[in-house]
């Protein structure tokens, strides 16, 4: 739902970095999105096509790298990837968990010309 704001930030960051390199064009953007970041790729792509128009990033390809959520059990140390409502440690049935990865919302790199 907040993909427009997220996509606008992606464009701002990319244009800033491209500007520092005196780039003529941005051809590719590499995004890292955690499974729990609540971001829908298709929506980002939809907004991207609209808001990048007329900038040096127009027509650039968005690459999405999805990072699965990974939980650590604070009782036994087990690491696992939840697939549904599995907020219980599969090893010791512990219920105190910490998210180790999966909430990323990052622009990792851009390709420029």
């Amino acid at each position: 739902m907040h993909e427009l704001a997220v996509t606008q930030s992606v464009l701002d960051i990319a244009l800033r970095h491209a500007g520092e390199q005196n780039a003529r064009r941005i051809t590719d953007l590499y995004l890292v999105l955690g499974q729990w970041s609540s971001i829908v790729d298709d929506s980002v792509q939809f907004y991207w096509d609209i808001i990048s128009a007329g900038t040096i990033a127009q027509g650039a390809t968005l690459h999405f790298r999805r990072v699965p959520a990974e939980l650590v059990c604070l009782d036994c140390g087990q690491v696992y990837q939840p697939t549904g409502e599995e907020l219980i440690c599969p090893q010791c049935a512990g219920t105190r968990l910490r998210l180790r990865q999966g909430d990323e919302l990052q622009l990792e790199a851009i390709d420029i010309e």
Partner: protein
Amino acid sequence: MPQHIPVVENILSANDRLALENQAELDAAGVFAVNIMASPGAGKTSLIEHTVRGLAGKLRLGMINGDVATSLDADRAQAAGAVAIQINTGGDCHLDAVMVHSALLKLNLTEFDLLIIENVGNLICPASFKLGTHKSVLVASIPEGDDKPYKYPGMYRGVDAVVINKIDLLPYVPFRMDYFKQGIAALNPGVTQFELSCRTGEGLPAWLAWIQNQVQDYRNTRS
């Protein structure tokens, strides 16, 4: 010649930076701020009304209400005795640091001890946008169902307290409190919790005491 440029920036870093500036402004005036989040209809505004009335004469209270349209919530807070600023997000599903910044400019912060920011009703987007508040609170409610922590882990993971509202409806609604609390405990071990009903008033004193203690702790760490 194509070039690969490493960026490695958090996409919402600009918002995060402005959130820090908001907090610096609040700190300069000595105002403790809370971000109240919930789904639509969970009882954010009701809880705020009770909070305004319950703290009248004890704390000077300011409000920022975020809503897609209308000023109904700000009107309710004002009627209860708070100074309230309404932000209409014009369709946006969350408040962000920019909107809060412009609202802060309209308030004379030195007139307040506590600033309550009522976010847009939504369990997804507000969790990603820091505002610069010192604490964030989630208002959950019995009729929403006991599966919400599992469905909205981002929201339940990032808050400092969970208020479980409408407990007067427990006899009428299938709601497994154990299951609900197990989800909270898994995502946010040890988080402060309140069970209350804004309708009957049950459980409200503990919430009011917590808010007052938070303001006091904030003052103590600053003096």
